[in-house]
């Protein structure tokens, strides 16, 4: 009986067991091996030891891509959290209107990232884009968002705030989970609105905020679609902009445009280690900053 249960369980788990072996475990091992080789898909891989990693650390484009990516993530994640929290707070007190505005804020999230990248080019166009049109209306001479290297990344960050929808929903759910009694007793204790927010709301929703920070950091470090659509690819050779060369874009180019599979695999492992390190730091910080119900804070 026990044994038959086990066989039945194995049957149900088999899709994942096979998939994990073929599409996760083997690729991890093989990617580690490839990172120590030169491989162009056509010819056999040749073992080169650590030289891909040495090359990589000396490659100015890798440093540039890494710097671009870190800049984007460091600027984008806090803004993302602030904007989604602000919108969630507004929705939380909007009463019957909240359903409608929830839809409004979420809809951009449904837009394919390719279309978002393309929209970026149009809306942020320096000469006749909508953004600069709006800025001109209030007397500001807007920058060349899509060509000026100093403004490309800030522009992409602003564009990315258009798709905060899912974070808004998560934070709204967290806000609605805060027990009303906590606010009542805080008010009785004479806490003002700001005080209530800082010592009741924020601690209570901190797990959701932390979750959004971690997920968006990981996503930010791998950002690809919008910037690649806008600045790279077949027709854009004259238009590509190194200010938008994010790490995964360069990795993708190395792998699938130049067929440097070994080099790209080494890049992937560096990214993996960077992501692990940053996530680990966030986890450690969270022990001090995130309040979990039932745990000593």
């Amino acid at each position, binding site marked *: 009986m026990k044994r038959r249960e086990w066989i039945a369980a194995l049957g*149900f788990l088999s899709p994942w067991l096979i998939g994990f072996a073929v599409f996760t475990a083997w690729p991890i091992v093989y990617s580690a091996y490839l990172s120590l080789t030169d491989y162009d898909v056509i010819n056999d891989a040749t073992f080169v030891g650590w030289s891909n990693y040495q090359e990589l650390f000396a490659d100015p484009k890798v440093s540039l891509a890494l710097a671009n990516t870190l800049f984007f993530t460091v600027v984008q994640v806090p803004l993302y959290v602030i904007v989604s929290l602000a919108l969630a707070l507004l929705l939380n007190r909007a009463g019957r209107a909240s359903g409608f505005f929830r839809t409004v804020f979420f809809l951009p999230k449904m837009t*394919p990232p390719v279309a978002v990248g393309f929209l970026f080019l149009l809306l942020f166009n320096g000469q006749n884009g909508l953004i600069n049109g709006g800025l001109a209306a209030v007397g500001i001479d807007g920058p060349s968002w899509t060509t000026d290297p100093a403004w490309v990344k800030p522009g992409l960050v602003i564009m990315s705030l258009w798709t905060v929808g899912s974070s808004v929903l998560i934070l709204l759910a967290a806000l609605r989970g805060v027990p009303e009694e906590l606010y009542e007793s805080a008010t009785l204790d004479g806490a003002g609105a700001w005080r209530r927010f800082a010592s009741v709301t924020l601690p209570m929703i901190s797990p959701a905020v932390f979750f959004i920070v971690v997920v968006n950091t990981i996503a930010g470090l791998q950002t690809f679609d919008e910037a690649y659509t806008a600045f790279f690819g077949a027709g854009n050779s004259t238009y590509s902009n190194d200010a938008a060369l994010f790490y995964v874009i360069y990795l993708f180019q190395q792998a699938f445009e130049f067929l440097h599979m070994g080099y790209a695999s080494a890049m992937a492992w560096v990214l993996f280690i960077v992501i692990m390190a940053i996530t680990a730091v966030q986890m450690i910080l969270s022990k001090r900053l995130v309040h979990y119900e039932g745990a000593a804070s």
Partner: protein
Amino acid sequence: MSAVTERLGVAAASDATAARAVAAAPHGPSRRRRSRIAAAISLALLVATGIVFVYPFVWLVSASFKPRGEVFDNRLIPETFTLDNYVAVWQEAPLALWLLNTVIVTVLAATSVTLTSAMVAWGFAHFRFRGRGPLFALVLGSMMLPGAVTMIPTFLIWNALGQVGTLTPMWAHNLFGSAFYIFLMRQFMLSLPRELFDAARVDGAGHWQVFWRIVLPLSRPIIAVTLVFEVQAVWTDLMRGLIYLRDSATFTVPRGLKSLVDAFGFGGEWHWEILVTASVVTTLPMIVLFFVAQRHIIQGVATTGLKG
């Protein structure tokens, strides 16, 4: 919950009491009046940000009805209204074929990942076997792995199987379940009453029958969430299309739209009206999906807190 309506509701009645309150406390506005002002301000802010969020859609749709020269004029109502772009876009690009390819890939991907993830989730939720904990931890851990690490070996697998350039690599990995959906569905299935399944077993139903006839029907809410999430993920997936699709005839819509941006955008012929129209056609199915499945999407995102 309904701060505004409550306040609006009491507004009329409170006018009199507010007047009394003001009279009683002449120093500054009353609490109630202040909170009414706060409600009005937050509603105004909502409307303003709402306009900002909707405007790009309106701009895009409006631009798709403008002739080439007026795309950038930023008028809300087109000066010259034309349907030409919606005719031209099908001639300039094999958009119908791209849509068909995407529908095929999306249907295969969403149904296969839903079914197999449900199977695996049930395996973890129902059966008690040695090593279950560590194995499930492995499922969760695999979610943390950046796609970039497995991307190249996965490409080499499909290349060795001669599938690069076909639609197969766009969806076939979904035959093996997906960690995120396994996690989601397991959580749901754990909440189902166990006695039900034990009773069915006593009545002589096999494990597969229990799964197929009882578990799946009961799991409809989470199946809906999974289907909708995956449809959206596949419909908007650019990276796989860039890696695996070579010939325009095999493109999915995101991959096709990217090729149009290359051909007609800054590096190309500057046919913005075609791009704008193709973007509308690409995005519209997702907007429709949202309104059809709004309940599942909002519930799914809010409760699982994922899909970042």
